[in-house]
């Protein structure tokens, strides 16, 4: 029981069929959490559910095929999770359309912004930025009502947000990063927190196609997400809100404070002091 500290918790994880989402699902299940796995493709989901159950035990995983940009289906996914598991505590927004939709090789072959199909550019923006907003919108009232919860958004490294050749991938992640900081402000005092977790570099998933030429063993492995996501979902992270964590810098051997200092930072670009000028009377208000 001691190593199943997430017993009694339920997580909804989008993009759970593959890559980081699947790995996080397995990590959380192994610590006792039940998982509602959301993805588009039913066969991919079915395979992932089998792996997650292998990690967490029979019946700990539920497949919910859903498009995270579809309002009705997003709400139905929430309802289904509550019906199956009696509620949920955690939402992880991992579903994303990656650079591979724009180029096989974002290192050497980078389409210019004027060469990209507008419909694809918009679709990626919608899935990566609006999808998490929609899922958080339908999930949050339940979390707030329970008085405890986690929203964890997977964005990307700050410089990948303006990586050329990847269409709207980077900009969509910049939007999600900013929105996470908004979520964390709006959730203050509710017992629910919102944070960002990123791998810290290109990860060994389908998002980094073979054509990029990277040695796959040297990429960040999806398993790197497990220790920090399990910690974020534990009671030990109750006071952590509005932060971003880099999984590949997360070191469980360090003390809690050292770990946070090493892998954590404020969400977005809050360290930069070049902020807006405010009229004096606004600055004096409590806003």
């Amino acid at each position: 029981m001691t190593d199943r500290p997430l017993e009694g918790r339920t997580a909804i994880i989008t993009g759970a069929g593959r890559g980081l989402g699947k790995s996080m699902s397995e990590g959380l299940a192994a610590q006792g959490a039940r998982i509602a796995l959301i993805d588009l493709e039913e066969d991919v989901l079915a395979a992932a559910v089998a792996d997650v159950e292998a990690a967490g035990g029979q019946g700990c995983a539920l497949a919910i095929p859903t498009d995270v940009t579809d309002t009705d289906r997003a709400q139905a996914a929430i309802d289904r999770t509550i019906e199956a598991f009696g509620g949920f505590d955690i939402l992880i927004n991992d579903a994303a359309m990656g650079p591979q939709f724009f180029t096989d090789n974002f290192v050497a072959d980078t389409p210019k912004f004027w060469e990209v199909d507008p419909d694809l550019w918009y679709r990626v923006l919608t899935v990566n930025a609006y999808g998490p907003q929609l899922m958080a919108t339908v999930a949050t009232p339940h979390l707030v009502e329970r008085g405890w919860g986690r929203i964890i958004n997977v964005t990307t490294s700050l410089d990948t947000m303006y990586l050329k050749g990847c269409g709207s991938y980077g900009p969509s992640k910049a939007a999600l990063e900013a929105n996470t900081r908004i979520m964390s402000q709006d959730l203050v005092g509710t017992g629910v927190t919102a944070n960002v977790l990123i791998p810290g570099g290109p990860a060994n998933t389908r998002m980094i196609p073979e054509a990029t030429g990277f040695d796959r063993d040297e990429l960040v492995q999806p398993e790197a997400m497990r220790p920090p996501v399990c910690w974020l979902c534990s009671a030990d992270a109750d006071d952590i809100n509005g932060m971003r964590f880099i999984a590949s810098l997360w070191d469980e051997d360090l003390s809690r404070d050292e770990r946070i200092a090493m892998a954590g930072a404020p969400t977005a670009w809050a360290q930069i002091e070049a902020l807006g000028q405010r009229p004096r009377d606004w600055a004096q208000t409590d806003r």
Partner: protein
Amino acid sequence: MTDRILEGKTVLMTGAGRGMGRMMSIALASAGAKVAMIDIDEDVLAEAAKDAENAGGQGSVKPMVCDVTDADRAKATAEEIVSTFGSLDMLVNDAVVGPERISGFFVKPSKFWELGDDLWNAMLRVNIFGPQLMAKTCAPYMIQRGWGRIVNVTTSLDTMYLSGAGAYGPTKAALEAHTSIMSQDLDGTGVTANILIPGGPVNTRMIPDASGIAREKLIQPDVMQKPITWLASDDSDGITNMRFIAALWDDALPHEERIERAGAPVAWAQIPSKSIYPDD
């Protein structure tokens, strides 16, 4: 105007009917540019075009009703501009769905889960997809001539995560990042991509009267005029991937000091948080 330094240049200004887009159109026209003023609100646009034409002279302005998210309309608009004025040298993406559309903005802020999906999506579509679509449509004209400007209006870095403003901040964060991508893609073409922001809340419809802030204490939209004129001019050749804060722009300073005071790299490039690549 004394100095018509933009003579021979044609600018496409989106969101030209009101606020900052209107003031920038007036400034560019008075400096000698031809200005195609784009908006979706025909009545407001007609009025704004009259103001700009008064400043720039007969025939300097062309008001055009166009939805910046409509690919076919954008293409037709760009073609019409080129056939009317002979070139398309600069795009200013100022059109935006602002937070004033959210009821209670600035007075009783909504939580993120209380916002309407439709408005959130409208912001996403107009504020970030719109500038991409317009830039995609206009860039080839500029590249062909070997000179051009794309200027995107985003917002202060901390407004990008302002609670209660819906997708407004996040869409501006996306446009900020995308401006850097534009700049990188345009490297070597003679076309530049930069950001111009006012630097704080501006006296436009975006800040409702109910905010209680005295309107004269807000940044006035005409602060955009001098820096946009400079960005449109040959004086800013070679300046790319930068963001400029209009409220800090001081024409009285020497060129380099002006840039130093009001300029910064696009986005958050100052933060030492690099993606870790296998080769590192």
